[in-house]
């Protein structure tokens, strides 16, 4: 089965090259069909590979450079565990969904769009399967550059250029931080293979400045991609201007990939050498995760541009993903993994509804669209179903994810984690609900003193409308997101996968010594009363706050003015100026790195 592994990335990359060269001459339909095939076939392969992993770690060495057991790995290897394979599968499924949706959505020169999407998807799938840190960096950059280009796809408008420029500069600086960290690790260990670096660091046992600096640089670099405060500014700009089907990949998997990278690098490279410092590492990462979750939810409540609103909601949820990883326990990590799935499906559906609004109503502004969505019934259904999935109602949507994270946090003694997750969920879901109520049902006021205006986006031309396909994809994703929480077997499977993922020795033996790891204990998950209560709280809270925020215009003048003034500094910080973003990035790296330097000694 291992020979299938590289095909998962090779097929879309080869197809992208072929379409890029022939696109000018072949009909647009051929480029589309090539796109579907080049996303669909690898998705099937990824599913087969996932079926074969089940507790194992499959290694694939490029060019046959498989090292003898215990010797130094010279070649470049991929190491596929269940979590990595699931992530790759999810990337490819969302890629396929986005391509099918954009069948009639994108305008002329569509083959270039297909090329960029395939390269983007292939790079993300490769990134999660790779077992070599420099290989990861290269795919990270491939993924970034295609994402920058996709953001600026509507190059005839001004704001996509700004969004893409900010996105490109911030993420490139983030990638440099990662590269500096990789250089330090190579200087210390002479290796680029994750398992080999991990083995050398663990046996060396020194946790001096070089190791701590490498850890801080790599973590901060990947957190830029994950849009964690104060590295998050680029995300809202990029999501607001990128085409809706591109946002599906941005919000559904790309941001999550930053979190995945932090987890992957920690558990394969640093878990041994920094094992004694789990507490300070956990506290720092939990802290930034909590700030991200709450800030994202707050900003979400201030947006009227629908895609920008959804972007801030993604930031709020990214904070929760980081909390799941930062607890540094397998069960919490399993929670984060299930969370990524449920959130990715639901959020994709929401972005696609945004695309439908743009196509049918030529607008993406909540207040200008007031009541105009009344006749778009399928869009309304998808919107509210997806919002419900994100509200974490009992036994649906993100419920299992929240329950796993909350329970793991309680075991570790972090009583405030469920509270933060609930606040982030209520804040962001209420904003989504508010927008839906205004647009699709015409509920509430036509004015809102707290929302900030954004430049509008031009709709795709009339003749490209094919609403049936767009609705089908959107509804499918929305209901899948809701169902993700109802599938209890998923939580158990994720717990097993997370056991393997967090076992550094098992990874090391599997990759370097070709020894299959012991199968993880079967995962078992039960709903606790606490998680049920929290689910009811988030559901009721989201609905109540959602309805309440549609009538903010009825607040007394003094109160609404006071609120607007209170949010003024927060708004001002999100200035749209790349210089400010990089200043924040530098500041954040200094603070997080400084905290690690002080606490790890």
């Amino acid at each position, binding site marked *: 089965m291992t020979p299938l592994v590289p095909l998962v990335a090779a097929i879309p990359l080869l197809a992208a090259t072929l379409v890029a060269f022939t696109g000018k001459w072949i009909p647009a339909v051929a480029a589309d069909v090539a796109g579907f095939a080049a996303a669909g076939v690898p998705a099937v392969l990824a599913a087969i590979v996932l079926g074969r992993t089940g507790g194992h770690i499959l290694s694939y060495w490029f060019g046959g450079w498989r090292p003898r057991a215990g010797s130094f790995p010279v070649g470049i290897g991929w190491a596929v565990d269940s979590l990595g394979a699931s992530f790759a599968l999810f990337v490819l499924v969302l890629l396929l969904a986005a391509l099918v949706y954009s069948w009639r959505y994108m305008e002329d020169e569509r083959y270039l769009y297909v090329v960029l999407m395939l390269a983007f998807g292939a790079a993300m799938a490769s990134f999660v399967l790779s077992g070599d840190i420099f290989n990861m960096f290269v795919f990270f950059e491939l993924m970034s550059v295609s994402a920058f280009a996709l953001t600026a796809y509507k190059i005839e408008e001004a704001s996509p250029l700004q969004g893409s420029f900010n996105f490109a500069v911030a993420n490139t600086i983030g990638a440099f931080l990662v590269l500096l960290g990789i250089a330090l690790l190579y200087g210390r260990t002479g290796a680029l293979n994750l398992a080999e670096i991990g083995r050398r660091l663990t046996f060396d046992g020194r946790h001096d400045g070089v190791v701590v600096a490498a850890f801080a640089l790599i973590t901060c670099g990947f957190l830029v991609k994950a849009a964690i405060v104060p590295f998050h500014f680029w995300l809202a700009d990029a999501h607001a201007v990128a085409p809706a089907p591109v946002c599906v990949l941005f919000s559904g998997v790309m941001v999550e990939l930053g979190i995945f990278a932090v987890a992957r690098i920690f558990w394969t490279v640093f878990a041994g050498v920094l094992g004694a410092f789990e507490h300070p590492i956990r506290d720092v990462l939990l802290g930034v995760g909590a700030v991200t979750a709450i800030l994202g939810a707050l900003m979400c409540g201030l947006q009227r541009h629908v895609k920008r609103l959804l972007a801030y909601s993604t930031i709020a949820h990214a904070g929760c993903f980081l909390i799941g990883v930062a607890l540094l326990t397998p069960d919490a990590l399993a929670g984060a993994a299930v969370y990524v799935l449920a959130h990715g499906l639901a959020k994709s559906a929401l972005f696609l509804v945004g695309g439908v609004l743009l196509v049918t109503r030529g607008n993406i502004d909540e207040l200008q669209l007031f009541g105009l969505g009344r006749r778009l019934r399928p869009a309304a259904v998808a919107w509210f179903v997806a919002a419900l999935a994100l509200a974490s109602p009992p036994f649906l949507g993100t419920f299992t994810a929240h329950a796993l994270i909350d329970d793991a946090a309680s075991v570790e003694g972090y009583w405030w984690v469920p509270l933060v997750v609930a606040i982030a969920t209520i804040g962001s879901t209420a904003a989504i609900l508010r927008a839906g109520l205004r647009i699709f049902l015409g509920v509430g006021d036509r004015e809102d003193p707290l929302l900030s205006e*954004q430049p509008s986006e031009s709709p795709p031309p009339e003749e490209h409308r094919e609403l049936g396909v767009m609705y089908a994809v959107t509804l499918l994703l929305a209901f899948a997101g809701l169902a993700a929480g109802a599938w209890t077997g998923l939580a158990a499977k994720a717990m097993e996968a997370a056991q393997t993922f967090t076992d550094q020795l098992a990874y090391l033996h599997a990759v370097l010594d070709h020894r299959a790891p012991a199968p993880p204990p079967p995962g078992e998950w039960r709903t606790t009363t606490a998680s049920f209560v929290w689910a009811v709280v988030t559901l009721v809270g989201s609905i109540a706050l959602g309805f309440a925020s549609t009538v903010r215009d009825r607040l007394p003048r003094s109160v609404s003015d006071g609120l607007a003034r209170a949010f003024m500094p927060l*708004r001002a910080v*999100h200035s749209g100026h790349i210089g400010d973003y990089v200043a924040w990035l530098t500041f954040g790296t200094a603070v997080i790195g400084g905290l690690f330097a002080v606490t790890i000694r």
Partner: protein
Amino acid sequence: MSVLPYLLAVWIFLVGLYGIVSSRNLIHIAVCVSVCQSGTYVLLLAIGYRKHGTAPVFGDIPTSRKVVDPVVQSLTLTDIVVAVAVSALLLALALKTFEHQGSLDPHEVAELKG
């Protein structure tokens, strides 16, 4: 070996960051990103340096000869290729922005905020 190359790498990186933060011109920002990246080249090459080592090309030298680390050099090359793609994209975006708005000042072209 001396600590100077490492300090130089950090210095170049920070100068690049300062340039981006204080810049009023998008093309200048794109160049500053390249400056930052140069810091990473210097660090990579410094890590591969061996005292009295020569270039790692074994065509005309005995294989017993001490050479600098070829791995970091190939990493640097890869890094340069990445830089070309990013610079090209940033400059294209800057150019298009000027065509649309007649300005390269990030303060003036900022439409998305809040």
